[in-house]
């Protein structure tokens, strides 16, 4: 925690020393103090590196989401345009390992935004999520996909 505040306030000292109270100078001070703190502390404690790692995780999460969105949309579009229905819909109960409100909300949004699946309900005990999906060939496989792909990504991004 002291490293965190040090990284926030030491740039102010830098601004005082250089005599320029501008935002750009704060950023320069931030970089320099990050470098100084990085030399004496573990990398996991320096703000700049934490922010960069978090940014990287959000970028990876966005790419994952865009990929899911595109692949699943094409499947739904294919079903809309071709004759007959290739859907195998089902309402599936997926056990939840996520605990906090934020994590469950993010997972529910992710499931709902992926075409072909719709989050219907989270049980009052918050341990099961009921998902309506359009393409369920194998129930166990579907559960495994939700857990390993989506739940894993949600946990990674909020870590």
């Amino acid at each position: 925690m002291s490293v965190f505040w040090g990284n926030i306030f030491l740039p102010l000292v830098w601004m005082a020393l250089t005599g320029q109270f501008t935002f750009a100078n704060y950023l320069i001070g931030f970089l320099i103090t990050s470098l100084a703190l990085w030399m004496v502390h573990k990398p996991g404690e320096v703000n700049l590196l934490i922010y960069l790692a978090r940014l990287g995780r959000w970028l990876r999460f966005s790419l994952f989401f865009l990929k899911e969105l595109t692949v699943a949309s094409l499947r739904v579009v294919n079903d809309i345009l071709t004759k007959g229905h290739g859907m195998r819909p089902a309402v599936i109960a997926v056990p939840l390992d996520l605990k906090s409100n934020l994590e469950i909300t993010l997972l529910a949004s992710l499931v709902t935004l992926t075409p072909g699946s719709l989050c219907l309900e989270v049980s009052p005990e918050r341990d099961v999520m009921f998902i309506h999906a359009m393409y369920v060939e194998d129930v166990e496989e579907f559960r495994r996909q939700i857990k390993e792909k989506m739940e894993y990504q949600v946990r990674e991004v909020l870590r």
Partner: protein
Amino acid sequence: MTLVQLAIYLAVLPLLALGILRMPDIYMRMSCNAKAVTIGLGQLLLALALHFGEIGVTARALATIGFVVLTIPVASHLLGRASYLSGQPLWQQTSRDEWGGDEAAPRK
């Protein structure tokens, strides 16, 4: 680039309308329209941002995309939940319904 995005937007909307007509039950209709709106609106706003290329417009377009992505799943989740609880039938080829069989959340 802008043209590509406008083309996607213009392609997605008729597909959405067609999807609402073609899908056999309310859950699948919602499955396709919520995402079509997200994709379509996202592309339209991106095209807007690229066309003007100003920071103010871009920031507002990105913020709008963020709000759309945050709010549309909530709306469709609530609509789906409400339709299920009010007894909207599932398509007859639905292979299983694990919510209905669960005492934790009994079906009305």
